[in-house]
């Protein structure tokens, strides 16, 4: 039926169209390939470990991750640092605490602590960042449309300001950010900014950006591998169940005129 075909076409177009609606003239991030995509996708442990290092040495100077504990770093499905490595990582962060005299102090982190903010509070963070707030990065990949591609594009997308563009003082030109000017200065500025252990690819700006995005994808969805594995099992089970029920149904109705 023509009408139905028309309807189906309109449905398809409209669905695709919603995604494109109302984005203004901001540059769309280019799609990248990520290891965790697809039904069998997994995180790359080495990549998550490198990404952690970029986070710690670069991003942690401004950002926090208050939903992620250090102990998560050695859990299955993540960077899977050894227990000892994870404890050392925790101890390398200073976290706010209260000592036994009631004084506010900083102490070394323990596995149960969360990734702390380098600032005592939001006002201090804003004061240090041109009145912009370095958001918590725990779920940032899920909190942005097309999150992984967007953050990769954002981190690698800083460019010279076009002559016709009116840049406000203290902001940086970045065509991927809504409004095209962002308070965060380019965090990844030179190749080799982070030194990785032997056996890892060279620390180019692009590689560091990819790896820190992978790390943030894991912090946003730490149960991703468990979820996909269970998903494959559930789908196989349901497929088998559907086939059995289909034949039971056909068999039963064989003698009924319908």
């Amino acid at each position, binding site marked *: 039926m023509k009408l139905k075909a028309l309807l189906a076409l309109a449905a398809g177009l409209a669905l695709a169209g919603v995604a494109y609606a109302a984005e203004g003239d901001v540059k769309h991030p280019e799609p990248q390939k990520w290891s965790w995509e697809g039904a069998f996708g997994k995180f790359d442990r080495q990549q998550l470990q490198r990404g952690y290092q970029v986070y710690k040495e670069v991003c942690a100077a401004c950002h926090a991750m208050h939903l992620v504990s250090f102990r998560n770093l050695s859990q299955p499905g993540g960077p899977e640092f050894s227990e000892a490595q994870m404890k050392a990582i925790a101890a390398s962060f200073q976290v706010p605490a209260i000592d036994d005299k009631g004084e506010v102090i900083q102490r070394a982190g323990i596995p149960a602590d969360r990734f702390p903010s380098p600032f005592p509070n939001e006002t201090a963070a804003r004061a240090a960042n041109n009145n912009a707030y370095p958001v918590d990065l725990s779920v940032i990949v899920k909190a942005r449309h097309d999150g992984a591609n967007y953050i990769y594009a954002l981190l690698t997308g800083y460019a010279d300001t076009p002559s016709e563009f009116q840049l406000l003082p203290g902001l940086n030109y970045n065509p991927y950010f809504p409004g095209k000017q962002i308070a965060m200065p380019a965090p990844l500025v030179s190749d080799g900014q982070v030194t990785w252990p032997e056996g890892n690819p060279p620390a180019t700006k692009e590689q560091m950006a990819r790896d820190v995005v992978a790390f943030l994808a894991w912090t946003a969805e730490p149960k991703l591998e468990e*979820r996909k594995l*269970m998903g494959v099992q559930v789908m196989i089970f349901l497929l088998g169940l559907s086939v059995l029920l289909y034949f039971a149904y056909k068999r039963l109705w064989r003698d009924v005129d319908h």
Partner: protein
Amino acid sequence: MAHGPSTYKPTNAFTRWLDSRLPIIRFLDDTMMQFPTPKNLNYWFTFGGILMIMLVVQIISGIVLAMHYVPHETLAFDSVERIMRDVNYGWLIRYIHSNGASFFFIAVYLHIFRGLYYGSYKAPREVLWLLGIVIYLLMMATGFLGYTLPWGQMSFWGATVITNFFSAIPFVGEAITQWLWGSFAVDNSTLQRFFSLHYLLPFVIAGVVILHIWALHVPGNNNPLGIDVKGPADTVPFHPYYTTKDGFAIAVFLLFFCYFVFFNPNFLGHADNYIPANRLVTPAHIVPEWYYLPLYAVLRSVPDKLFGVILMFGAIFVWALLPWLDTSRVRSNKFRPIMRQLFWILMFVIFILGYLGAQTADDSNLVFFGIELPIGKLLLAQIFTIYYFLHFLVITPLVGLLETPHPVPESISKAVLAKKGAASAASA
């Protein structure tokens, strides 16, 4: 009448004893096993069973979520994330619940449009149809209340936009809105009462579902031919015939559902809801969940707030009038050549309204795949809204009077035999 005399025979001393005191096994046997069901039901008739499953899925997953969820403005967002990270299989429960709501609505829309196509709202099923509308309204309320609970940006701003519509009511609007909020804005007291009501309403739904099924079991099922059951040759017992057929359909439905739960759990949600609620930052584009979009387009199609709200509720209220607006004596659109086309046009109109509901709220021209169409979004929404109401209020009564339906078969079994005969003649 679909009901015959009860055929249940207690088989042992205990069931005989119970049967003469509380004949509950007899009741279940009559209504869920022997219940005579037209033998020509197609897959569109399985969505009722699917809806029952989804209600149970939502209630069970919701009760488990409520064991860990904290309804407080400073804790709600993090408590949901804690469920996702630290509660055993919490991610599973939460993704089942959030995607379950969407699949519940997919099923209910297909179920309603099925009824529209096959004329299931006509006598003697008007009360059944009206109870269905009550369930749908309760579902809309429940979904809205639930969506505020994770207290992300869309939760907060969605709740703000929707509750603000009540302020359009003349004279008492502001008082009612503040009464709903429990405050002077959407805040912690709003969240806590929304949680309380979100817990309550699904059980109210379950109650109305019981009435709905009661009202179904008096006249019995409608069927794709839309004709009454004439005798035992037209029916089969519900069990095992429809338990297996529905079972198969439910398994396939769950396959689609599980694809989203396990492989694309955030596809039907909005990224902004992973940003904690912030009353100082308005999102660039506040959109409700997909299942409200057509109604949202109707609401925004009128500049006047009060009229918009009336129109939005009116868009559902016209369904309640439908049994009396439809003047045709033929139920199924299978035999109504004109109404059948109009049905698909209505589906198209609702779909476009949904599309428009997802657009930004301004009167710019519609941009479709980068191509600017020479028509404003507002005007388009107005045209489609007007058509929507015309369909029910004018076109349906007129077409019922003017259209000449195709001849309707005498009985379900005769129609089946005729179809079989034609098929074997063609293959010979």
